[in-house]
């Protein structure tokens, strides 16, 4: 039980990095979709 901090650190890190990565990907996806929509709208207006 005395080595628990290491166990916690390892799992915590995995969770944190994976979560942040997925979050970054999802946010980028939203950004890009919005940008694509904006471009398409602007194009239609021409």
């Amino acid at each position: 039980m005395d080595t628990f901090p290491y166990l916690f650190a390892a799992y915590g890190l995995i969770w944190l990095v994976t979560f942040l990565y997925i979050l970054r990907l999802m946010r980028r996806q939203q950004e890009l979709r919005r940008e694509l929509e904006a471009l398409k709208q602007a194009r239609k207006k021409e």
Partner: protein
Amino acid sequence: MKVLDRVLWALGLVGILFALYLVFMWVPTADVREGIAQRIFYFHVPMAWISFLAFSLTFLGSILYLWRGTKGWDHLAYSGAEIGVVFAFLNIVTGSIWARPAWGHWWVWDPRLTSMLVLWLIYVGYLLLRSYTPAHQAPRFAAVVGIAGFLDVPIVYFAIRWWRTLHPGPVIGTGGGLHPTMLTTFLVSLAAFTLFFILLARLRVGLRALEAEIEETKEAWRE
């Protein structure tokens, strides 16, 4: 999000929660000397397998890109490299965290860990090459590195392992065979992460394709 992605996300989440339960509550402690930190194994090793899976996608994508020239393959190659770098990094760091209670040092030049570090560097090089090379050459250059790096993996591993037999030291990981409970826990963990990997790969490839589409739209608009 498409249906498949939602399914992967849900299954992956359930899988991870189940794996966590197994790791923390169900599986017995393997080695009393190492203590509870040994359980890092159940996530540490799957990280390595997933990164290999990712890098083989890069290998596949690189070959097919050089052969066929379709951008889709390049998107696959890039995504594999990026995801692989993330998981390889996690493997290395959790390995280091495991080494500390197990051997008293933060780093032990263990053959597998050291090979993974070299591998990580190779694919970091892949990613940096992409950003520093002009856009018309970047995919082709990267494809070469994607192929060379992957072919290098077994050679690097054997060279380091051989080198280590001359200069022996601590080895991280379970020495002998796996007890059935440990095997089950390991496999559940591996399965859960594989599901997440597939999800991540789909997401990343989709993002690359989206970026490419936006670029093309901008180009077409300029004319």
